[in-house]
């Protein structure tokens, strides 16, 4: 596969390491009363869709960016590639 890196342009996916669902960005509040349940859900449960999937790829043999790649799990088509950091900020992870 080819991942169109937002900074570097198209790169072979073999340069990247895959982690999984981009929901891993949404780490729950450890101090919430529901933290135990929230972290269980965060760490273990997955939508695992057959279709479009936001997922985390690390450019290990490249610029070491974590990327959020929107890819179709049936066709493997890639629709969008963003820096995970930007996504994290957009999802309110700025402190």
């Amino acid at each position, binding site marked *: *596969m080819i991942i169109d890196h937002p900074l570097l342009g198209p790169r*072979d*996916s*073999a340069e990247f390491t*895959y*982690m*999984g*669902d981009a929901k891993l960005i949404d780490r729950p509040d450890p101090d919430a009363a529901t933290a135990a*349940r929230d972290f*269980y859900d965060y*760490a*273990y*449960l*997955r*939508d*695992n*869709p*057959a279709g479009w*999937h936001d*997922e985390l790829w690390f450019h290990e043999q490249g610029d070491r960016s974590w990327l959020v790649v929107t*890819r179709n*799990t*049936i*066709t*493997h088509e890639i629709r969008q590639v963003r820096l995970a950091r930007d996504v994290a900020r957009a999802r309110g992870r700025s402190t």
Partner: protein
Amino acid sequence: MRYSGFQVIKQALTGHKGWTPAWRDPEPQSHYDIIIIGGGGHGLATAYYLAKEYGQKRIAVLEKGWIGGGNVGRNTTIIRSNYLLDGNEPFYEFSLKLWEGLEQDFNYNAMISQRGILNLIHSDAQRDAFIRRGNAMLLGGADAEMLTTAQIKARYPYLNTKDARFPIKGGLAQHRGGTVRHDAVVWGYARGADSRGVDIIQNCEVTGFRQESGRVVGVETSRGYIGAGKIGCAVAGSSSRLMSKVDMRLPMESHVLQAFVSEGLKPVMPGVVTFGAGHFYCSQSDKGGLVFGGDLDGYNSYAQRGNLPVVEDVCEGGMAIFPAFARARLLRMWGGVMDMSMDGSPIIDRTPIGGLYFNGGWCYGGFKATPASGFCFAHLLARDEPHPTATAYRFDRFETGHMIDEKGMGNQPNLH
């Protein structure tokens, strides 16, 4: 009809006119006591044992395509029980014992061949880990033997001990491990279940569940509504898709695992060998093809196909230990979609919804588990309590912290 050598001769002498369909092609009835969704190895085995061991009646297996079209028809046919952890070893040993008597049990020659599986060792730490595992196997009633490199070379003289990047320092063997003709497992269970009254309904896709007051009462299918007392889901590879119809999210991801077969070759591989410093394992089929595989492609996928980097990675692993295979040709590659669970171990459990039971999360290890998985799932469906060898395969183990993590890779499915 009972299969036998006599029957084969009799039919041959009478123009093969008497062979009957291995299973019927019934129209779905309006209601069954138990519906199994998924006509793969596990689903058919479940139906078989429900009928045979647990005396259940009015059972149907619903298959969206043709039976055996999922992972049971696209794996590398290995059976073994070389597991380490308490939650796993008794279950897989139970499975291996069922394999050992299966052909006589269901009257079908699935070519179960206990030609042995050998895990190569390449470092001292790996040896320590394999000794621990081998001891766990022996203490659990399975078989295991530590082999020296010389012993291994006697069986595989062409193994690379000359310039191997990761020298071979021995191996852990399970002689009772081996291979099975995978399709025959499907057909044997299907035929056995059918002959005990189970309706196997192909081309019948489940599109939804009907629930009444917190309990499933039937399924909507491409062939209409079918009522059911209990429903068991055994659709590994599609588990998340199916269970999303009852709004369940599962502790798993779907990943593609590729497998490969070479052209037919005169026998060179007596057993199954796994490379311990790369991603490669290999055996040779009774037809002569080298059957081999390696790692997952690594990304979520429902496409039954993979990509070149992993093909190359697997062949590199092969060439690392078997440089004599270079001129053998890879004939066909294919991919299966794995339920990769969060700890690498399966789930056989009730769901929060009454009457709905789940079997899945087999990662790439489902084939060898087929008999025990069917047996234990049948037990759960019939008795509403887990089979003694499958008590650990619970949904809630992640929430309570009772993971069964053989490889110690944690909650990242593609690392298991």
